């Protein structure tokens, strides 16, 4: 272990330390600690972001821990995204934590740990590290989902998330084990080389008595392994047919946590998904592209159709998040540099608009999340014009109306897909995105075109929440009007990710 290795994981170290500090604070300081927690959490996130920035430019020529971690532009992009998401969630949950009397120390500590796990996922270039990062972030989010301990729905969704999540992790692990068995490697780049050479990596270190084991890669094992890996990742990104947990978990979880799961965790899962499939399994693309094709289409269709029927706004957003996973899979199916960049850009745009939307839902939900049905939103446009206006912006962006980040996200996705000649998938994709407009518009209809049925109190927006709303709105517009910078970042990262592959840099 060298200093450079430590610098590579400095962001994670900072987050872990900040998390522990936040947790211990509660033990030593009884009163008023609640106000310190978010501050320390934000400080930790800032420090971690600084540690990422310090390593600019992000090249992957010097991987850490014997190739286990790579802080390339790809992972830097996701790190920054996670930190942003976590910071916005911390800010937007300050009201919520106070209102629901949640244990503030543990809450923020778990958020930081989950973020740390996601960071590890984004930079890991080894199946072992991927598993560890995934577990760190998953375990923390299982608990976060059940954080409203006294509420049955919250514990219920926590249990569902936990059971199905670990079930999927088990599949993923089995896939990893089989991949290891087929190629003799857990490092993604080595797996890539082994699959390319159709020869396991034993040759490199074979001692005489092992020579019989040196041999070709068993294709059946690889195929099975790809299928299992796909199951694991598809579950994490909530793609059909492994989406079953999503609505229940998103509905029962505390709203800020839902925001976190639907943006941060999803992005982390896609980061790993991309890295594993585009780096390690790139050579056998013909084996998995059709899986993505089918799953992407089904996610769009089922997600949108189910969302049409929802009355609970959190559940509606959950189904919409399934549909959005579908759009992202469309770009993924293109399995090109453009496709990877489109996925990255979309995840960023989606994260910002979705956090904004959930922030509004969380604020408006009031104590005990009482007001989360669509009809509660009736007349909101006139009782809380600014809140409703920001919600409208986020919903329009989710629809994909131009001048918002959501539009450019979709545009890049469909551009990448069309460029890869996925004409039918693209056509079905755009039609889906048009149908999806209906259920987003329904919320707008309730807010502006229905008179309020009952007098629902709307609390004053606190500064932290106000900042989140303004920031996400500004960012949504920025990504919609001047997307150049983020897009450049994404496409350079994608280029770098795939370029190293061609050179066989280990």
């Amino acid at each position, binding site marked *: 272990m060298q200093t450079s290795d430590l610098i590579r994981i400095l962001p994670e170290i900072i987050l872990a330390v900040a998390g522990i500090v936040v947790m211990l604070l509660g033990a030593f300081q009884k009163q008023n600690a609640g106000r310190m927690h978010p501050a320390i959490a934000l400080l930790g996130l800032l420090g971690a972001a600084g540690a990422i920035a310090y390593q600019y430019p992000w090249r992957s020529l010097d991987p850490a821990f014997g190739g286990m971690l790579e802080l390339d532009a790809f992972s830097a992009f996701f790190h920054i995204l996670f930190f942003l998401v976590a910071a916005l969630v911390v800010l937007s949950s300050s009201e919520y934590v106070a209102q629901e009397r949640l244990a503030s120390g543990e809450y923020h500590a778990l958020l930081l740990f989950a973020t740390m796990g996601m960071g590890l996922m984004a930079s890991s270039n080894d199946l072992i590290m991927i598993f560890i990062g995934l577990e760190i972030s998953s375990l923390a989010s299982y608990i976060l989902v059940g954080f409203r301990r006294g509420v049955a729905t919250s514990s219920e969704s926590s249990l569902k998330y936990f059971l199905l999540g670990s079930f999927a992790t088990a599949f993923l692990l089995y896939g990893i084990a089989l991949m290891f068995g087929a190629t003799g490697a857990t490092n993604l780049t080595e797996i890539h080389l082994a699959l390319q050479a159709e020869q396991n990596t034993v040759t490199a270190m074979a001692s005489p008595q092992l020579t019989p084991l040196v041999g070709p890669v068993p294709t059946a094992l690889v195929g099975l392994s790809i299928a299992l890996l796909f199951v694991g990742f598809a579950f994490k990104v909530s793609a059909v047919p492994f989406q079953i947990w999503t609505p229940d978990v998103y509905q029962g979880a505390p709203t800020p946590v839902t925001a976190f799961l639907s943006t941060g965790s999803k992005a982390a899962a896609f980061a790993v998904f991309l890295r594993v499939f585009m780096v390690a399994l790139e050579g056998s693309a013909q084996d998995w592209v059709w899986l993505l094709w089918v799953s992407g289409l089904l996610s769009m269709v089922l997600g949108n159709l189910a969302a049409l029927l929802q009355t609970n706004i959190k559940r509606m957003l959950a189904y919409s998040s399934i549909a959005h996973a579908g759009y992202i899979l469309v770009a993924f199916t293109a399995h090109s540099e453009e496709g990877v960049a489109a996925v990255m850009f979309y995840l960023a745009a989606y994260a910002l608009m979705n956090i904004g939307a959930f922030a509004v839902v969380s604020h408006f939900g009031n104590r005990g999340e009482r007001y989360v049905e669509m009809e509660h939103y009736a007349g909101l446009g*006139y009782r809380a014009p600014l809140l409703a206006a920001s919600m409208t912006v986020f919903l*329009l962006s989710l*629809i994909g*109306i*131009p*001048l918002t980040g959501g*539009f450019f996200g979709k*545009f890049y996705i*469909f*551009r990448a897909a*069309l*460029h890869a000649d996925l004409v039918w998938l*693209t*056509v079905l994709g*755009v*039609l889906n*995105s*048009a*149908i999806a*407009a*209906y259920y987003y*518009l329904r919320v707008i*209809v309730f807010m*502006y*075109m229905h008179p309020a049925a009952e007098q629902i109190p709307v609390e004053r927006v606190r500064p932290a929440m106000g900042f989140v709303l303004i920031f996400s709105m500004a960012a949504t517009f920025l990504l919609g009007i*001047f*997307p*150049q910078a983020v*897009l*450049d970042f994404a*496409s350079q990262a994608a280029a770098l990710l795939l370029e190293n592959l061609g050179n066989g840099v280990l």
Partner: protein
Amino acid sequence: MTWIHDHILTVVLFIPLAGAILIMFLPKENKNGVRWAANLTAFLGFLVSVPLFFWFDSSVGEFQFVEKVEWIPSIGANYSLGLDGISLLLVLLTTILGFIAILSSWTSINERLKEYYVFLLLLQTGMLGVFMTLDFFLFYVFWEVMLVPMYFLIGIWGGARKLYAAIKFFLYTLVGSVLMLLGILALYFINRSQTGVATFDIVALQNLNIPVNLQLWIFFAFFVAFAIKVPMFPFHTWLPDAHVEAPTAGSVILAGVLLKMGTYGFVRFSLPMLPDASSHPMVVNLMITLSLIAIIYGGLVSLMQKDWKKLVAYSSVSHMGFITLGIFTLNPNGLSGGILQQINHGISTGALFLIVGIIYERRHTREISEFGGLSNVMPVYATMFLIVAMSSLGLPTLNGFIGEFVILQGAFEENWVWAALAVTGIILAAAYLLWLYQRTMFGPLDNPKNKNLKDLNFREMMTLVPLIILAFWIGLYPKPFFRILEQPVQKIMERVRPAYYAAHPDAFGAPARLNAAAQPSASLETEAAAVRSAEKRAGASR
């Protein structure tokens, strides 16, 4: 002054937006302040657009007032604006109708005034952008963004079934436009593979050579978007709902400008970018058939309406059928008539909706049977209605006649059956409009509620008078308008039917008429030679 001259389009485009932002910061309680601000903005928007008409040089075939700034270099999208004859007329129509629409809502809108004007002004910027932009990507942005304010206008200030109408409008148009986006992307990729340049530049995309098969696919992707917007039969069902439920200003804008975006799309994109598909017999027959169905069906349905506004809405379907008929005759007469008729339709149908709006504001009903004998109490109103109705049904000396006549000429040139069928549309128009007029304006004034109706006030007159003046101008002296259209029509013809001018040297927009120096080699030899000489002359005229 030169700065204004160089950036006039940007100024025209963003004045409404600036006004909208200004109004957002006005206090809600100050209703008259909001009204004045909106009206002044719209009037200013109209004023700055007037110089366009005088500065425009109709002998130049290229786009004028061009502005170009890089926007998203990595995909090749630019902020680029420019006008040719077609878009010039539509931009002017938009600024006039935009102002009139805002003026017409002074008293009819009393709730949520501020938001209303903000949305109307945003809509104005969106529409202007659609007509001005020279970048296909930017075009799409404006095209879609415009949906949002229109959606709110219908949904918040609309009539009884506003929610249904608003969502139907939004979803219909959205479905169409996302398919168009794919078409745009297809053209973009084709251009990139042929020239190596990633661009959405409309001029560049108009010079592609694409295999006919592919052209047909892209044509149908565009077709869905444009046909829904026009709307062509059978995509028209959103139109009556949206029109009937929208507030008056919304209807005026919708009929006057929004529908033109569809026909503009055909003229600007489908024809020049996909010439082989557009002139493909299958496509032409399909388009002409749909247009003729729209003309006759729209007329028949109008005849049966009991609701005044719905009648006007269906008459729009019929009139828009004329425009698409003209465009797809693919000859200079049809094309120029089709383009001019867009302006005419904007003027006369816009005015008809104002007429309906004025009476609706007084009586809060649009049932035709509720009215009768109005000419006794509202003589000025009745007179203006008469002029507007005549302009709409195509009486000579008024604008509708010119457009329809030229379109019919074009249709006759291709196939007399088309023209014959289209003429029934004019007859139907005369029937339903005159019958409407008779039922509402003449007869005994037997409904007591109508006895005390007030005639038009000054503001209401001012909304109608400019349109009536324009109607007479185009009806009596259309020459300047045709001159403006000559060059653009010629360019389209050279793309769609390159051999046409060689065979018809006297046709409208023929290069020979523009450049006397180039001798027309009229009696041609073979088609190939004709193409060559046409190209040569086109080059010379530039």
